[in-house]
């Protein structure tokens, strides 16, 4: 099946935002901040990084949690402030934004690829069941690409993931929920 892949609207908006001339270097700099629970992915890749504003020496970085109780937010805040400080931005603040609520649509295409390589199935590797929730089978195994898999638990190692097992290669794996 050949399809021309279209960039989702959300991705396009995010890229536009990122290319704003005066803060471009800051966006690039922030690529160094990884999610402490999935160190293969930056906060840009995950879509947690929402906005960067600069007003003279003052920098405001806006982030949003994937889930209400995401314990990584505090770490990320500290890491962002430290990084900016080390690069000469001593007046930096991190703002936590709740609205709009984080969506797995915001994850970058590179992020999805890196996620799979890291051993976690990205959101698009499974369909949705009738309730709009994670289905109980057929998420693509990130190790052997088989669809012959089943859900072991709704909740995986973190709230944003579900746990699956592959019936072909036998490996258990995390699936990043589509929300």
């Amino acid at each position, binding site marked *: 099946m050949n399809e021309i892949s279209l960039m989702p609207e959300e991705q396009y908006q995010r890229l536009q935002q990122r290319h704003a001339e005066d803060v471009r270097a800051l966006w690039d700099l922030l690529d160094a901040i990884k999610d402490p629970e999935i160190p293969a992915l930056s906060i840009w890749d995950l879509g947690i990084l929402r906005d960067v504003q600069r007003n003279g020496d003052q920098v405001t970085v806006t982030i949003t*949690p994937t*889930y*209400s*109780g*995401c*314990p990584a937010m505090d770490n990320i805040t500290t890491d962002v402030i430290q990084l900016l400080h080390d690069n000469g931005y001593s007046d930096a603040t991190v703002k936590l934004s*709740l*609205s*709009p*609520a*984080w969506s797995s649509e915001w994850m970058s295409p590179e992020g999805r690829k890196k996620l799979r390589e890291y051993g976690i199935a990205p959101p698009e590797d499974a369909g949705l069941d009738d*309730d*709009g*929730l*994670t289905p109980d089978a057929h998420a693509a195994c990130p190790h052997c690409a088989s669809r012959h898999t089943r859900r*072991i*638990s*709704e*909740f*995986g*190692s*973190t*709230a944003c993931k579900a*746990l699956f097992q592959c019936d072909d290669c036998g490996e258990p794996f995390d699936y990043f*929920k589509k*929300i």
Partner: protein
Amino acid sequence: MSDQIKQATQEYATRLGDDSVVLGHRISEWVSYGPFLEEDIAYGNVALDYIGRARMFYTYAAELADDGRDEDDFAYMRNDREYRNLLLMELPKGDFAYSQVRQLFADVYYALMLPELLQSKDETLSAIAAKAIKETKYHLRRSRDWVLRLGDGTEESHQRAQKAVDQLWGYTHELFDMDETEQLLADAGIGVDVAGLRDRWLEMVSVILTEATLTVPEDSWAVRGGRIGNHTENLGHMLTEMQIVHRSHPGCKW
């Protein structure tokens, strides 16, 4: 925002935060006691969702109070009589069936209440609801599955699930009580008119209980008082454990 509305909103955010932190803590008591590993992890996840909500509600309450307190002061520095949570949330975890039946009652409640809160004219409350709705769908699917499995399971699991339903039923009426504060906010389009949710709650819960071969109890008794600080003795014990570290080492960070 008028002073009256502001004060009511602060009280409301505190109540919702109290419901979340108390239930979240109760769920977290299952961590390392789950019947099997995946279930243990699931409990930890759900607890975290609730504690995360509590943080958001408390942060907002603190912002409105504007008296130097922060989310931690709300969670750790108030005693049981100052807590305003619904009694259902504070009851001890009991056995696995008891916790899952309580969770089902709470999840159906949130599945109905949060979409209403999403419509709130208050942007922060609406934003918190938007996040929580997505999580609650998952919570409800899990508690529903468990209640079906336990109710329609072995003789032992059926009997335990029915006992839990009977013991918890009288605590569910309070979920749909409105007082002056909540009425004021409902009229202002900020808070949820929970009284209007009971029929739908009853219908949804009855369908699930019936499918689980469990009997829907008669409304023969009701306990109330959480919203005015009259709690069961369980809350004091729970808060003692939850607050001890913070109270022993004020301002401690790690």
